[in-house]
């Protein structure tokens, strides 16, 4: 034992303490060495560890600490200088690393802490997303249910099936205990239980519609929770001790066809609603979830649509059935009407003939009788017979006319006629009758009224006569005025009404005729009846003249056929009346083409037989024909010149010749044109007439084209020639006026 200068421990080495220190150091070293091993092991295992270099640093720190403690083991006893150096190195290193580690930790620990925060945040987020996922899933589920329900509901157009299906499907989807539908009654004041899920025959419960709970449901389009005790929810007899499930009610709009406007969506204010009530199972502690309520609302809307479709379909089916029925009925009616018309026409045709024959006999014989010697009494009697039979004949004619008018088989005969002369004739016809009744008749024709017009002369005259006749018939005193004027295009509009729509046009004009009288007048309520057949406005006893009541009806038909309108105005009984009618007439064509004169039927009455000295020219190259024609004309007294060629004709013809007869085989067309050019105006030049044996159209057309005044077919008899000359000479006068 060397005495050493080292400091001796203060107390003698306590073996036990030393031992414990020794062991502790050993274990510390062990632990410190194993920590990095563990770290490495686990880090190796983990995939992600961002701070490897931290680990290295930490590992170094730990290892050095462990080394220090390990080396400490040798320093308990005597140790050499190497050990001390090693110890010191170790300690120094350890110190360095520790400080470095300490410094580094200042940076690392906040990071590590924030990692933790982020982890927490992410966990929360994940939880939230899970929740949302759950929500979406339920919604999607709901949507699926709705689609399925809608599909079921809309797959049928039958109202009952729709409603039943709705209830069934809803009940299934939502696992309901009871589902009920209350429909408004016809009066709209009550709701009636129409369909339920469980009970198959709902007894007709009704509740008044104006309950507060119902109003509450109807006022919003959401599903509303209502109390299970409300009258609409009390569907089952109260069985005692169960807790009823929650009840929800929703309104179902009942849309009507009339609610759909083209331009805007249906207003929901003036609507009828049905009430759908849904009850959760009792004793289940289930509650209505939001998504379930939404499902219910959507379904209610869909049901409304489906119901309206069904209603529209029902409506259209009904309309179609109705139309078909009507169609069948109309067809039958039409056939019956046709049969009736045919029967009537046959009857009329037969009766017409049958009636006319004896009528004819009566009239003819009575007029003959009038001619014979009769005593005054007999004469009076015969006159009465004649008068009555004339009336009867007129009646028969009227009836036949009217039936033809109604059939539409009557057609107007259009022709050019002298309008002024029509009125004059009417005037002349009624003047004697009027003067017998001491009535003054005045005729007033407007100055702008055309002289000639195109229309049905006979029927126009008939109408004017009828109207004027009525005026005379129903006037006992005073005067009758007949006025006619043309309505100017500007004033046409004043005459328009529901039935009459005059349209101004170039070739036509509207003639208005007004007959005013100061007679017995007509009361306003009788005016509409005037134009209907067979009605009389006065009792039979006061009628002092004939009249079947058909006259005005026929006039109305004629006037309508002439695109016109007839009406009567009267201030009242005793104040006279004004009958007016408007008819559409055409303007006559104004061109120089003459009307070709084919030899007309024999007119026995007014044939001029004296053609004395009438200068005529005959052109024919056939000598025989020439002398025959000459003989013919000379026999009738004409002064005849004959020529054998067209040149000669042109040389010889002069203004003095009134007519030139030419055989058509000559160049008669050129001669005709020459004559026309040379002599100009029609009333001064000779008339040119062709004689031909041809009856074909080409000849006639050529004659018209070259402006000949007539064509005669050979052979010509004396009578024929006489008539031809008469027509030519007479109608020349007519041509002049054009």
């Amino acid at each position: 034992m060397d005495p050493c200068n080292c400091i001796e421990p203060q107390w003698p080495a306590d073996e036990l303490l030393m031992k414990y220190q020794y062991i502790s150091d050993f274990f510390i070293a062990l632990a410190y060495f194993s920590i990095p091993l563990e770290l490495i092991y686990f880090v190796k295992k983990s995939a992600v560890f961002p701070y490897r270099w931290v680990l290295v640093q930490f590992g170094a720190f730990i290892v050095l600490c462990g080394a220090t403690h390990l080396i400490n083991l040798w320093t308990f006893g005597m140790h050499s200088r190497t050990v001390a150096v090693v110890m010191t190195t170790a300690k120094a290193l350890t110190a360095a690393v520790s400080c470095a580690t300490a410094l580094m930790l200042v940076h690392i620990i906040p990071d590590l802490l924030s990692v933790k925060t982020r982890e927490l945040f992410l966990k929360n987020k994940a939880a939230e997303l899970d929740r949302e996922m759950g929500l979406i899933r339920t919604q999607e589920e709901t949507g699926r249910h709705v689609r399925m329900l809608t599909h079921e509901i809309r797959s049928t157009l039958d109202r009952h099936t729709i409603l039943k299906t709705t209830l069934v499907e809803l009940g299934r989807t939502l696992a309901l205990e009871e589902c009920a539908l209350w429909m408004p009654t016809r009066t709209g004041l009550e709701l009636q239980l129409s369909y339920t899920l469980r009970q198959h025959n709902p007894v007709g419960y009704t509740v008044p519609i104006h309950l507060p709970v119902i109003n509450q449901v109807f006022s919003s389009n959401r599903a509303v929770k209502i109390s299970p005790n409300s009258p609409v929810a009390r569907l089952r007899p109260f069985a005692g001790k169960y807790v009823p499930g929650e009840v929800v009610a929703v309104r179902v709009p009942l849309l009507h066809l009339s609610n759909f406007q083209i331009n805007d969506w249906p207003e929901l204010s003036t609507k009828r609603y049905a009430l759908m009530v849904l009850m959760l199972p009792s004793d289940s502690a289930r509650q209505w979830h939001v998504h379930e309520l939404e499902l219910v609302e959507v379904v209610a809307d869909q049901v409304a649509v489906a119901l309206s479709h069904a209603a529209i379909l029902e409506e259209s089916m009904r309309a179609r059935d109705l139309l078909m029925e009507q169609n069948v009925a109309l067809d039958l009616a039409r056939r019956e009407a046709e049969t009736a018309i045919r029967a009537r026409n046959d009857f009329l045709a037969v009766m017409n003939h049958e009636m006319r024959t004896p009528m004819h006999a009566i009239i003819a014989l009575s007029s003959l009788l009038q001619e014979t010697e009769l005593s005054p009494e007999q004469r009076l009697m015969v006159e009465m017979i004649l008068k009555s039979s004339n009336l009867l004949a007129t009646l028969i004619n009227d009836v036949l006319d009217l039936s033809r008018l109604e059939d539409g088989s009557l057609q107007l005969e259009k022709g050019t006629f002298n309008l002024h002369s029509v009125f004059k004739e009417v005037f002349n016809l009624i003047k004697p009758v009027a003067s017998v009744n001491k009535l003054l008749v005045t005729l007033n024709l407007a100055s702008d009224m055309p002289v000639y017009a195109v229309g049905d002369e006979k029927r126009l005259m008939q109408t004017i006569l009828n109207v004027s006749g009525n005026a005379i018939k129903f006037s006992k005193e005073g005067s009758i005025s007949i006025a006619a004027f043309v309505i100017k295009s500007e004033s046409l509009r004043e005459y328009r009404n529901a039935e009459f729509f005059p349209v101004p046009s170039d070739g036509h004009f509207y003639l208005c005729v007004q007959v005013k009288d100061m007679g017995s007048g007509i009361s306003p309520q009788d005016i509409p009846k005037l134009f209907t057949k067979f009605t009389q406005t006065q009792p039979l006893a006061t009628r002092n003249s004939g009249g079947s009541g058909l006259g005005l009806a026929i006039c109305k038909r004629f006037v309508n056929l002439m695109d016109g309108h007839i009406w009567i105005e009267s201030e009242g009984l005793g104040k006279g009346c004004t009958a007016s009618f408007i008819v559409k007439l055409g303007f006559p064509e104004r061109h120089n083409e003459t009307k070709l004169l084919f030899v007309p039927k024999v007119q026995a009455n007014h044939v001029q037989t004296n053609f004395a000295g009438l200068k005529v020219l005959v052109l024919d190259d056939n000598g025989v024909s020439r002398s025959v024609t000459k003989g013919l004309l000379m026999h009738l007294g004409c002064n005849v010149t004959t020529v054998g060629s067209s040149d000669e004709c042109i040389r010889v013809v002069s203004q003095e010749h009134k007519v030139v007869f030419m055989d058509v085989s000559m160049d008669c067309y050129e001669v005709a044109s020459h004559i026309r050019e040379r002599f100009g105006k029609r009333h001064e030049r000779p008339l040119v007439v062709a004689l031909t044996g041809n009856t074909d159209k080409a000849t006639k057309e050529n004659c018209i084209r070259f402006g000949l005044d007539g064509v005669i077919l050979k052979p010509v008899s004396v009578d024929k020639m006489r008539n031809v000359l008469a027509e030519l000479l007479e109608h020349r006068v007519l041509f002049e006026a054009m």
Partner: protein
Amino acid sequence: MDAASQLLKQWSDHLQRLCQEGFLDDQFLQLKQLQDEDNPKFVVEVVSLFFDDSEKLLSNMAKALEEKVVDFKQVDAYVHQFKGSSASIGALRLKNGCINFRNYCETQNKEGCLRCLQQLKQECYVLKDNLKALFMLEQQYVAAGGSISKLS
């Protein structure tokens, strides 16, 4: 006036026969009507005119048909003229013959035309004889003192 009335009867029978056999038609009667005091010889004049005319026409037709190359249009024109004349005096058969003739002309059938021409000539002679007889009777009647008016 027995002779006169007898002659009248003869005349009237003759005329009737001519009409019935189709030699003459209504036109001839019309011509008769034209004969009056102013124009006593009207019918005779017209008939003579006719026969002169027809002779000319017939010879023209014959000449035209004898040509090497027959101008059917020309022939047709002649026939047309003849037809017109025949129609004017009421020679029915001649008129119908002309219609036939014209058909052959249209088809340019020389044989047919020649045949028709022959026929026409034939008919013409027959008619001429008949009418001569008629006029002779007329003259005799007038000579016997009959009134012309009864001849209508």
